[in-house]
């Protein structure tokens, strides 16, 4: 497992955090669906709690199909999953 604190992971975390949570919100139609959950979650999990407990929880969520919703909540994204 790569170090959560390394430059590459934190850069991806900052990218996700900024693009999905910040920037000008204007009165258009904001539609975001989220894919590549595993890859994004590798970075996003750093925002919630310790690596081990989240990894275990994430495996449970994947089995029950709740992973996308959970990740969106972590990123504080208003998610309308159109898939």
């Amino acid at each position, binding site marked *: 497992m790569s170090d959560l604190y390394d430059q590459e992971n*934190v*850069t991806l*975390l900052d990218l996700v955090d900024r693009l999905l949570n*910040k920037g*000008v*919100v204007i*009165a258009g139609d904001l539609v975001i669906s989220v894919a590549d959950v595993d*890859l994004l979650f590798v970075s996003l999990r*750093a925002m919630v709690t310790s690596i081990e407990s989240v990894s275990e929880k994430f495996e449970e969520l994947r089995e029950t199909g709740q992973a996308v919703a959970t990740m969106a909540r972590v990123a504080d994204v208003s998610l309308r999953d159109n898939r």
Partner: protein
Amino acid sequence: MYLYAITDRPETTLPGVTGIGGAELASLAVGDLDVVVSNSASIPPTATPETLWQHERVLEALMKDRTVLPVRFGTRFSGEQAIRAELMSRHEYYVEALERVKGCVEISLRVFSREVKITQPTVEKPATGRDYMASLMAKAASEREERRRAEALAESLINPLVAFATDYEIKVLPSPIQLLNAALLVPAERVNEVHQVARDLAEQYPDLPMVCTGPWPPYSFSSIHSEMNEHTGS
């Protein structure tokens, strides 16, 4: 239409990068403002590392010769008329927001810690109601003390960087393993100095993993009436 940014200088030629899904960029000038869009067939965009980076690359290319207000990823409009109406109705707001970030970029600093966190003191099972209340008060006092120490440490960490910033947003203990999450709006010409100060801090505090990223487009400072501003000690 998919939106990337609101910018100044609509007379400027668009950069030679493509948008999400390889879509060509287009410019919608509204007076002294410009909206950079693409007619992407692949909307709504799916947030993957690739699409997020492509959105970012468009903004970075635009920033070379314009002031940029990044638009939230995933924003689209039904057509040109709706975009023009939005810009005309809030023209002054966007001009003011652009002025605020002109010549500046955003730098991020995250400081991680396994040691500094809110912990719950171990208490015996209370025998009486009074003991129960005493345990609650002890817990609250302990949490206040932990937070006070974390805030003092965060302040000493961030002060040398805040000195460069025209604005900043700081969150102390945003999650159990993060001591500090800071976004700094700094003049573009001072980025190298900021990076050097961040490197010095990392050497000064070897037990605190910290990562500085950027320069980014001014995502955290693109709204005038930001709900996110949480300045430490102010």
